[in-house]
């Protein structure tokens, strides 16, 4: 089957979604990321891999953290980085996406990091660009956020290397979350046997069970004996209509409190992709507690994004 993410040799050409990527590719990215973790601890936090290349951060939707981590990752690989907040620029003057992209190609961009509020935008750009240019999806609508999914599984692998033996719970707004979708695909591909989603019915996509997850509507039942708790942000900006009575009620039913955390295994880790709504999805004492790996997620996110860019930016071994 044709997969736009892979070239004729089966190597990664674009990173658009974790869905459809073989385990071999995911493992390659995670293994490469191990090499980049140490770069940040050295006197000179740079390696020369992308020297002379230009990476374009093409953000049609606002994001500070994701754009910043991609920017740091590209700079630590010695690339030149161009940040375009298209939402506040050409598009408001009426330029089409492809015209924007064509202009950047004319400026000899080598890689595009794309975030867009519409699902499929990165895929659309990937089909348009010439073969020497790679596209990385940094979040498209409700569809996918593959580097976030990868950095989450990288973090899990760091703390819980026995992935074939894990029970993972993803909690909160699954419906609007491209992060949840990418996490589920990554965990399943890497062989995690039990993936639970815990959410109110209004925040679950239809037929979510088909992704191979177990569905819980009760937080206490869902958290029982899990090794990993992945909290999600309540995406108020994507909600239309009354999906929730109030954020206070959400916290009472689905918020991660210190008491609920004791239901999980004593060595369970707590994750959150950020930005956090303290007191809505997660209690501050849990977010800052000793089981939280939320800040290591950010650090590992840079190594994982460096790995993805380094794999995409290099030649292909014949």
């Amino acid at each position, binding site marked *: 089957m044709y997969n736009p993410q892979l070239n004729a040799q089966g190597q990664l050409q674009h990173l658009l979604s974790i869905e459809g990527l073989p385990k071999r590719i995911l493992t390659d990215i995670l293994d490469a990321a191990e090499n980049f973790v140490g770069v940040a601890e050295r006197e000179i936090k740079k390696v020369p*891999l992308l020297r002379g290349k230009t990476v374009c951060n093409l953000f049609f939707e606002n994001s500070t953290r994701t754009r910043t981590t991609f920017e740091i990752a590209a700079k630590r690989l010695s690339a030149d980085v161009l940040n375009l907040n298209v939402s506040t620029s050409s598009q408001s003057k009426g330029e089409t996406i492809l015209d924007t992209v064509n202009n950047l190609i004319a400026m000899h961009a080598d890689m595009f990091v794309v975030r867009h509020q519409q699902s499929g935008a990165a895929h659309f750009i990937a089909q348009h660009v010439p073969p020497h240019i790679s596209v990385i999806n940094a979040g498209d609508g409700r569809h996918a956020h593959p580097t976030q999914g990868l950095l989450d599984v990288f973090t899990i692998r760091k703390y819980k290397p026995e992935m074939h033996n894990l029970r993972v719970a993803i909690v909160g707004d699954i419906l609007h979350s491209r992060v949840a979708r990418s996490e589920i695909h990554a965990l399943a591909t890497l062989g995690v046997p039990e993936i639970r989603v815990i959410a109110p019915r209004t925040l679950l996509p239809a037929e979510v069970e088909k992704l191979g997850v177990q569905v819980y509507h009760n937080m206490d039942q869902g958290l029982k004996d899990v090794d990993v708790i992945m909290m999600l942000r309540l995406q108020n900006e994507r909600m239309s209509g009354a999906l929730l009575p109030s954020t206070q009620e959400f916290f009472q039913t689905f918020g991660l409190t210190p008491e609920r955390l004791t239901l999980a295994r004593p060595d369970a880790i707590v994750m959150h992709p950020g930005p956090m709504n303290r007191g809505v999805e997660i209690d501050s004492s849990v977010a800052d507690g000793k089981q939280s790996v939320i800040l290591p997620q950010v650090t590992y996110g840079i190594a994982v994004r460096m790995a993805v860019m380094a794999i995409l930016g290099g030649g292909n071994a014949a």
Partner: protein
Amino acid sequence: MILPDPEQLLDQLYQQLKPRVHENTALVGIYTGGVWLMEKLLQRLQTELGRDIAHGKLNASMYRDDYARRGMKTTAQPGHIPFDVNDRHIILIDDIFYTGRTVRAVINELFDYGRPGLIELAALINRGGAQLPIRPDIVGADIPLLAHQAFELSINTQGRLHLTVTDSSQSATHSPEANLPNDSGAN
């Protein structure tokens, strides 16, 4: 071709290495074979000298000059330099010295950790074919090989080294460039 016992070559390398090691010396093994050799040399040195010696490992996969052609080697094990590099005497340890490109990459990486005082290179075998002005300071043996041949060093579960020669001309078609060293950095 009769091949020497790599354990004997390692002993010859050790005899030359030992007088060079002083208080300020650190050993750095180059993945993969160089790390095996470094660990064996380190163990013997630490036993005979009765003290700990600073040591580290590098793979230089992020500094290779063939990245634009061959891409990132993702299986490489992470480098680790757990000592202060500044003003150190560093002895790099590699298994087979060939083009010098791997050593060039490793030296570049080392400088991103700090400014070493002196860098020397020890190789188990120098097979000839250098493409850069870089040569090992001490070697176990000089054994020239043809471009289509390569040494392969392996280690068994008992930790014993084993040396073989592979020949790519027997499986690949012969090309006029066959006698020129390739630039992959592989040996």
